[in-house]
């Protein structure tokens, strides 16, 4: 009996320690771990390599989404219009933007074949709560593609809130689109446009280079 109690106590303590350790995991280590995990899984999974939409999105949902702060991303992309939106609109907007990003990221991920990723040393002070993690994707042809992340420390650990591909930050790039949609049809117009876009993406096959249109 005593042994079992000790064992349970030990197990609890070690789980607690793991939890503590992951909360203290440095942001670049976290991003590196997720990134390598995702790429390795994508390469090894036959279904994903064959272009199975569902499997790619499952991978994205399970391994990446928990580490992304979509609300912050949406807030930044909406800019000053965020304050003008009702809580319900904010929630809808976040959901639709999240779906769009999941589709887009899944599309990118399904094209992973034999690339490798190198991470650059992080330039940040230990006390920073917002850092930039820099990496590059080595392509079989041509220059490596810069892939950087902006990560912020929140109550539930480090979360990604912006991504930079080839020098362009995602939030900054969507800002212009968001602003003009809102100018055209208000925040509801933007939500509607995103919803329709997501419907279209949901119904088309993923990872095909056949000429569309």
């Amino acid at each position, binding site marked *: 009996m005593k042994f079992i109690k000790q064992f349970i106590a030990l197990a609890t303590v070690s789980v607690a320690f793991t939890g503590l350790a992951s909360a203290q995991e440095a942001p670049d280590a976290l991003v590196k771990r997720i990134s390598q995990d995702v790429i390795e899984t994508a390469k090894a999974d036959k279904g994903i390599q064959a272009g199975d939409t569902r499997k790619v999105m499952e991978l994205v949902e399970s391994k990446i989404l928990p580490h992304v702060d979509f609300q912050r991303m949406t*807030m*930044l992309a909406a*800019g*000053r219009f*965020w*304050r003008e939106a009702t809580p319900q609109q904010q929630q809808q907007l976040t959901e639709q933007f999240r779906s*769009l990003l999941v*589709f*887009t990221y899944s*599309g*990118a991920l399904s*094209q992973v074949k034999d690339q490798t990723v190198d991470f650059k040393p992080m330039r940040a002070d230990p006390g920073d709560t917002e850092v930039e993690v820099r990496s590059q994707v080595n392509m*079989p*042809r*041509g*220059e*490596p593609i*810069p892939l950087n992340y902006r990560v912020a420390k929140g109550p539930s650990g480090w979360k990604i809130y912006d991504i930079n591909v*080839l*020098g*362009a*930050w995602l*939030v*900054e*790039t*969507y*800002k*212009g*689109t968001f*602003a*003009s*949609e809102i*100018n055209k049809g208000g925040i509801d117009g933007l939500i509607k*446009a*995103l919803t329709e*876009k997501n419907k279209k*993406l949901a119904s088309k096959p993923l990872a*095909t*280079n*056949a*000429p*569309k*249109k």
Partner: protein
Amino acid sequence: MSRTMKFRHAALALGVTVMLAGCAGPNPRDPYESYNRAMFNFNDTVDTYALKPVATGYKNITPQFVQTGVGNFFGNLGDAWTAINNLLQGNGEAGMSDVSRFALNSTLGVLGLFDIASEAGLPKHKEDFGQTLGVWGVASGPYVVLPLLGPSTVRDTVALPADIAGDIWRYKDPVNVRNIGTVVRVVDTRAGLLDASSLLEDASLDRYEFLRDGYMQRRESQVHPDGDGAPRKVQKDDTGETSAPVSSEPPAKELNSGTPPAAN
């Protein structure tokens, strides 16, 4: 005319002026927007009906090693101009590395068909004269879409003749071989961008805007990688979060100050 009538006319005139001032006026982030959109649509049509199908066929049918060879061959020719630009920008080490790349690949790499230099650890750079001008301090200027060539900026358009002059393949004789080579290069380049363009289609609500905003940021990051160099004017939104501007210069203040800035 009675006073009431005069007042009404004045009010009407004022109202119309205010309305026009509000909805007219170019986008400060994209002063040539109407021209740019038209040219973008033209390029897009040419791409959809001519270039993309050919590039897709090329990518699907041509053996991979041939595609790699083509890419390497023209990439190698490009390395010479990249080397010159790196040296002009004061990047001695990178410039000499590019010279070594060119020398190595042209000889041991059999006229550039094999990219031995990358395997030897010499990274591939890409520098054009527009980036050199940027490093020298020339601001990018507004976004411009060039016929067939696609996204560019005012500065890079000015730099284009230099880039053309620095292109080794331009001096290839006889002319018909040169032209065939140019077509092959264009098709190969487009084939390499097929994945990116399908992603662009998926990710964007308005492809023109998405491409413009992404391109301007990318261009800036090519000129000033690591964000050093030009002082970055970080704007604070009303939400209190910070974000970097799209181009390296302040939103066109040279517009008549009566026009309120659009969007941001």
